[in-house]
């Protein structure tokens, strides 16, 4: 078993797999995960705010950018995480599997980190494709795992800190000929890596001597059977690690590959969130400008079961402040003073698009029932059921003059898929809170 693990580790080793590579990719990955955590928390609290929380309504694109960054950084994590796992893969076959008490903690935290971060990226990516093939709720698990990931990452960094500081800079990591400088023994409890690399080097030295010697190596030192055959076959190959130039080419290839792939997934998908990259959007799950009123949609009128109620000529919007209630028909709203705003629809799935909206300013509408400033509003949709049928709006959005009860979108009457006869559009809020097919707005007491 020990020999098998040794063989596996040696077979899996390559010049791209060392503590310096792991440090470089780990820094980028750690940064990307932190960005995802912070933007994710912002999005979470926008959707489920505590009573006392207030959010900025300006700039209007704040959520569009923060959620675009969340999704884009998450997608960038996929090649980075795979590259990082590739760099440390031989560590999986340490022999014996545990040789130090701290190592139990270390390996457990790594197992937790790897499992939760792979699952987090998989579920996050598939959520942007609206595909949920797993037997648990996405939103809750994605939220809970984010703490587990950052926590296990902190434990992992704590354990590896001596190695991370040791290989923080390139000039401390490679000698003048570009060879990786092995960690010294005192980097406890990184002793595991040390032992692994030391054994590895000893094995390589033995092998070099064996291949240099004209006489065949003693049979006793060669592993037999299939493992031995495979090892000898590999041994016949040029050992790039022992050729500094080749090993630096190999490292450069690795970093260029991971770097180009990371840049590639970002450039070819981020156009769903950032207008500047829209022309490059080859693989994004959404395209700006595509959909009714030149804007993508999420929930359709058919799914919301509002096809009849929304088209009913007798439709009225009820606005209430306690006992003071007024009802507005579509024609009433159209005859009121109209405001125009450029505001983004920004979905929690990352896609977004800034559009031209026209309609009655919410402050004007609420003034007709004498709604006090600093009041919290409750919006209800015609939807029969759905998690976002009822929406609460904090006073910062309710009193912002840019918030509209929109009747027009991109120069046309609102399409039924976008919330005909009227929907709300407020600056800096997630799309699910821009309630469509409005039926009532009430002051919450």
């Amino acid at each position, binding site marked *: 078993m020990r020999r098998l693990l040794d063989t596996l580790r040696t077979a899996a080793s390559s010049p791209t797999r060392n503590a310096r590579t792991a440090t470089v990719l780990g820094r980028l990955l750690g940064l990307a995960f932190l960005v995802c955590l912070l933007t994710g928390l912002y999005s979470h609290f926008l959707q489920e705010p505590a009573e006392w929380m207030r959010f900025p309504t300006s700039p209007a694109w704040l959520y569009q950018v923060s959620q675009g960054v969340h999704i884009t950084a998450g997608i960038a994590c996929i090649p980075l995480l*795979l590259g990082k796992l590739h760099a440390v893969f031989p560590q999986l076959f340490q022999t014996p599997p545990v040789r130090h008490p701290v190592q139990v903690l270390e390996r457990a935290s790594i197992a937790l980190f790897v499992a939760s971060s792979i699952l987090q990226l998989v579920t996050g990516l598939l959520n942007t494709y609206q595909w949920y093939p797993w*037997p648990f709720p996405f939103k809750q698990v994605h939220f809970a795992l984010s703490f587990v990931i950052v926590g296990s990452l902190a*434990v992992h960094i*704590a354990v590896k800190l001596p190695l991370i500081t040791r290989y923080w800079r390139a*000039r401390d990591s490679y000698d003048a000929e570009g060879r990786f*400088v092995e960690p010294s023994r005192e980097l406890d409890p990184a002793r595991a890596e040390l032992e692994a690399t030391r054994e590895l080097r000893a094995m390589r030295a033995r092998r070099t001597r064996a291949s240099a010697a004209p006489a065949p190596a003693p049979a006793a030192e060669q592993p037999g059977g299939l493992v031995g055959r495979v090892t000898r076959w590999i041994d016949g*190959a040029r050992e790039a690690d022992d050729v500094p130039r*080749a090993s630096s080419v190999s490292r450069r290839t690795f970093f260029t590959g991971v770097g180009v792939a990371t840049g590639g997934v970002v450039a070819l998908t981020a156009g769903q969130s950032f207008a500047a990259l829209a022309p490059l959007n080859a693989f994004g799950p959404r395209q700006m400008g*595509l959909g009714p009123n030149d804007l993508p949609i999420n929930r359709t009128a058919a799914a919301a079961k509002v096809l009849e109620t929304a088209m009913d000529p007798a439709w009225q919007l009820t606005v209430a402040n306690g006992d003071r209630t007024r009802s507005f028909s579509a024609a009433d709203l159209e005859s009121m003073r109209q405001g125009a705003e450029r505001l983004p629809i920004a979905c929690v799935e990352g896609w977004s698009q800034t559009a031209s909206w026209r309609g009655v300013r919410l402050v004007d509408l609420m003034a007709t029932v004498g709604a006090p400033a600093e009041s919290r509003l409750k919006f209800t949709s015609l939807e029969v059921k759905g998690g976002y049928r009822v929406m609460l709006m904090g006073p910062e959005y309710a009193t912002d003059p840019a918030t509209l009860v929109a009747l027009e979108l991109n120069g046309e009457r609102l399409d039924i898929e976008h919330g005909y006869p009227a929907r709300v559009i407020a600056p800096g809020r997630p799309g699910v809170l821009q309630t469509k097919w409005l039926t009532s707005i009430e002051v919450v007491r």
Partner: protein
Amino acid sequence: MSARSSSSAARPGAGRAPAPRVPASPTRGVRVARAVLLLVGVALIGLGGWVLTETVRPTEYGGLLVWLIGSVIVHDAVLAPVVAAVSLVVRRTGRRIRPAVLGIVQGAVVVGALLSVVVVPEILAKAEGTKNDTVLPFDYGLRLGLLWLVLALAAAAAVAVYLAATRRQKVRPEADQV
């Protein structure tokens, strides 16, 4: 285990280039940072566990556990060994191919594979059906095929440029001697 001298001394041929000197043992600052990170980390893991029990039904824990363990198995027991095996074959083949040429081809394959990891699930999701026409609007299979084609052409062009450049370098010294 015998006492170990400096790491460079044990490496064949490394005596020519002494390793840079770096303090070996962790300083006090590092020890404090480790303790803080460890405490914060354990607290956050606990918070995550608590949030999970507060928001996810216990009947769903089993499925979540299967997916967590499955993620590691798919990576560590399937994806990584396949990559390791392929890179072994490439290393073996590499004897007959110049490192730079091998690097260009490997780089293109790595880029293509990593982009495919993101796009293939998208093709599957589209095949499952979407809620409306604005979700997953493109023909992602065709686009991924085109991407691989572009990568292949780019790699071929890069190899051709490299080979032409090195041939010229080889020819020139001889021409100078004449």
